[in-house]
């Protein structure tokens, strides 16, 4: 499984064929989460808390149950008592005790919009009417939203059994700071004190939402014999199965989860919110139940990404060499412990640079907002905004070109990564050189505009995947895998299988199978699918090739070792048997041909990106326009170039939205004030220029086609790229996101 020494020309890898699921998706035939219908299906609806923090004294569901057409009502009392229990399944461990409460409050509500009861009825209108008949007796408790408020001495403490983890001495008092995580090396303070230039600043960000357009939705059917089926869209149906079975305390094998097409996730669909509720409703009603979230409820109750307060000091020598970093970051954790963003925030803060002296301390801070959930490179964009803004300041203070300053300090292959494990064949330097050589960087900055540059990294991932490859009797090829296709991965899998097998792309068809029809596969996330599931597909394809060679060898009566596989054909001397010829004879050569591969690779490599952004600032109104944007990234190798570029463009625009307008706005009563697309303000088409892309290909030698993973990196640099561009256009450092017109206006006036 080694990549070729020299860059070789591939037949299919790197091309742009039409994706196998394309026609269904452009004609409206594809079935997404909210589209599935089961016979006899009931419609469910969920009652949600109007209070951000309250004890539930009691819930009276009698009137709702008496309403004609209502078939089941469930509350937190219907959930099995959940103790602490970690399940893997997704990318990081989840404690089911908390996951269960993200599905439904059990005794206490911790954020506005948390589910408190649910109804299944013969129609949606009846279910909605029944919700109005449920009486919940709340004892409203004081709430807290902002990070600094939650850390205050007199702040309401959310959980009396959550003590700060990661302290050397076990704390005696419960705290909203659920976790401290730090990396210390050398003496950062002393190094910075002796630096030729340093920058100190505080940066703040608000929570943002993943913003997928498809609402969470599922249909669950839990039969009298204890067997269940769930139809839903998710980033990983095996994770849905693990969490649902775990929360409901039933066997994994009794829950069959069917993956529907997924309408965007970005990390937000790697957990359960509805499935266990729909299951409980179905068991009570004896019929399948559909639950679909409203957009307002998606904003109010599903995982945003953390807001942050970050204090940073970076110091550099006169030649630009970084000498020290002192950083304290505080991230929103949401209502329950377990958010992971602080780990990657601390670990990745200056992981893309060599910094001999570093003190990086992170805190996960609980408050009365939904529990944070993964959003594309979770935890990285926030800290990167601070670090790359500080780098921009250092470059200006030292009079060094910002790209040169990065080149001076970047990590190189063989040097230790943040985790201490040496870096492999990374392409960071190559990406920076490509950015420097790009016409965007060398073009003059237009009058009234500012140009910013920022770098960012993400570790990427491997993890378990299963794939099987089966040969049709006519020589066509069926690939079956367990990784939901969220952005064209069926096409990548078909390309890799066809490339390996030496057949036409169109001869390969790809199916994403349910949890009972293919082996375990981790979620589609962490930029792991093309890498890890791709490896499984390639390995299974190689298994098929071995069998094909064996059939040919036995047909010819020669040793299999003497048979080679070339361009879809078994070859021995001048004897040849094509794949189709062998397939046609399987009935008399030993039966059907198929192979399965289960992999758990950890030889993935991180990705690095460099973004260049030009902005124009209206000095009278504070409006910022992105005029030109270029994304340069080491992608390992692009399997399907369109979808690699698409990841780079989409991630960049999400990051630009985060920089300019997106933010959770809470009112004084602790309610989310902008729980809709109108006021959450994601970028629309007319806000954006074209997003230029440069795919730098430094292949991963541990993947047959050099794949590294591309999806997460592109959201890391834009916050600082935009911030740096606005700072250079205005002469004012942008410390706080979003860089909205009123904020920029205020900064401009204050500077006058």
């Amino acid at each position, binding site marked *: 499984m080694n990549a070729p020494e020299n860059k070789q020309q591939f037949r299919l890898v790197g091309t742009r064929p039409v994706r196998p699921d394309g026609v269904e998706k452009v004609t409206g035939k594809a079935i997404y989460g909210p589209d599935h219908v089961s016979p006899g299906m009931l419609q469910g609806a969920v009652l949600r808390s109007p209070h951000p923090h309250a004890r539930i004294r009691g819930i009276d569901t009698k009137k709702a149950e008496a309403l004609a057409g209502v078939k089941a009502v469930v509350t937190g009392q219907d959930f099995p008592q959940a103790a602490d229990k970690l399940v*893997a399944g997704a*990318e990081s461990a989840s404690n089911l005790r908390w996951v269960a409460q993200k599905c439904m409050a059990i005794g206490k509500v911790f954020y506005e919009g948390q589910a408190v009861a649910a109804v299944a009825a013969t129609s949606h209108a009846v279910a909605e009417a029944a919700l109005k008949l449920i009486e919940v007796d709340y004892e409203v408790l004081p709430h807290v939203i902002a990070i600094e408020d939650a850390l205050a001495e007199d702040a309401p403490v959310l959980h009396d059994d959550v003590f700060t983890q990661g302290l050397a001495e076990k704390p005696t008092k419960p705290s909203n700071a659920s976790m*401290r995580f730090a990396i210390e090396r050398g003496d950062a303070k002393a190094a910075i004190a002796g630096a030729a230039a340093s920058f100190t600043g505080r940066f703040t960000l608000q929570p943002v939402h993943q913003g997928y357009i498809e609402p969470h939705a599922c249909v669950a059917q839990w039969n009298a014999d204890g067997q269940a089926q769930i139809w839903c869209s998710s980033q990983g149906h095996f994770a849905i199965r693990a969490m649902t079975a775990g929360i409901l305390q039933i066997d994994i094998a009794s829950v069959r989860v069917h993956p529907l097409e997924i309408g965007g996730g970005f990390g937000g669909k790697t957990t359960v919110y509805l499935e266990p509720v729909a299951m409980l409703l179905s068991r009570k009603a004896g019929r399948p139940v559909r639950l679909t979230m409203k957009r307002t409820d998606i904003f109010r109750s599903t995982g945003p990404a953390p807001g942050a307060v970050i204090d940073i000091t970076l110091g550099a020598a006169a030649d630009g060499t970084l000498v020290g970093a002192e950083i304290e970051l505080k991230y929103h954790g949401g209502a329950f412990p377990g958010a992971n963003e602080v780990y*990657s925030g601390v*670990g990745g803060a200056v992981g893309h640079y060599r910094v001999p002296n570093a003190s990086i301390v992170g805190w996960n801070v609980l408050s009365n907002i939904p529990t944070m959930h993964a959003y594309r490179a979770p935890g990285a964009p926030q800290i990167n905004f601070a670090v790359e803004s500080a780098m921009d300041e250092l470059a200006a203070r030292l009079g060094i070109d910002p790209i040169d300053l990065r080149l001076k300090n970047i990590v190189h292959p063989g040097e230790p990564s943040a985790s201490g*494990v040496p870096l492999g064949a990374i392409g960071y330097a190559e990406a920076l050189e490509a950015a420097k050589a790009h016409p965007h960087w060398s073009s003059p900055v237009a009058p009234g505009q500012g140009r910013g540059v920022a770098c960012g990294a993400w570790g*990427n991932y491997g993890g378990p995947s299963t794939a099987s490859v089966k040969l049709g009797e006519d020589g066509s090829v069926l690939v079956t895998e367990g990784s939901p296709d969220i952005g064209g991965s069926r096409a990548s899998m078909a390309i890799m299988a066809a490339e390996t097998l030496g057949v036409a792309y169109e001869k390969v068809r790809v199916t994403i199978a349910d949890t009972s029809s293919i082996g375990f596969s981790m979620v589609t996330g962490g930029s792991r699918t093309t890498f890890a599931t791709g490896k499984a597909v390639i390995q299974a394809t190689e298994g098929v090739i071995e069998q094909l060679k064996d059939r040919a060898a036995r047909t010819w009566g020669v040793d299999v070792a003497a048979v080679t596989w070339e361009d879809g054909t078994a070859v021995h001397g001048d004897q040849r048997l094509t794949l189709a010829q062998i397939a046609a004879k399987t009935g008399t050569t030993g039966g059907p041909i198929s192979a399965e591969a289960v992999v758990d690779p950890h*030889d993935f490599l991180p990705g690095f990106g460099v973004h260049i952004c030009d902005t124009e600032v209206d000095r009278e109104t504070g409006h910022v326009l992105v005029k030109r944007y270029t994304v340069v990234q080491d992608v390992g190798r692009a399997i399907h170039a369109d979808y690699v570029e698409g990841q780079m463009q989409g991630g960049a625009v999400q990051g630009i939205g985060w920089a300019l307008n997106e933010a959770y706005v809470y009112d004084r009563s602790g309610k989310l004030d902008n729980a809709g697309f109108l006021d959450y303000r994601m970028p629309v088409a007319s806000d954006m220029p074209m997003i230029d892309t440069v795919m730098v290909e430094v292949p991963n030698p541990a993947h047959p086609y050099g794949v590294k993973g591309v999806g997460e990196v592109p959201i890391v640099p834009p916050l600082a790229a935009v911030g740096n561009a606005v700072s250079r256009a205005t002469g004012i450092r942008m410390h706080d996101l979003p860089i909205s017109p009123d904020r920029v206006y205020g900064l401009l006036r204050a500077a006058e």
Partner: protein
Amino acid sequence: MRLIVMPPFDREFFGGKDTLEIEAPTLLALVDRLGDLSPGFAEQAEARAAFAVDGVFAPDWTRALAGAEEVVLLQRVAGG
């Protein structure tokens, strides 16, 4: 064999110690040993821990450690 304990496990389970000298035939056995040193670690390890043996990630914990010089214990990081 040297075990480098990365945050948060160093403070959370080993009193802030970031280097341990410890012998074990396999990573599984190592997890058990660490569990003896710090009750509660073994239960969390499967869901939260990752190991690198002499600079290479080792997802298979049955792998023999004979001849290994350095094992790094680190937190698994999630993606979106």
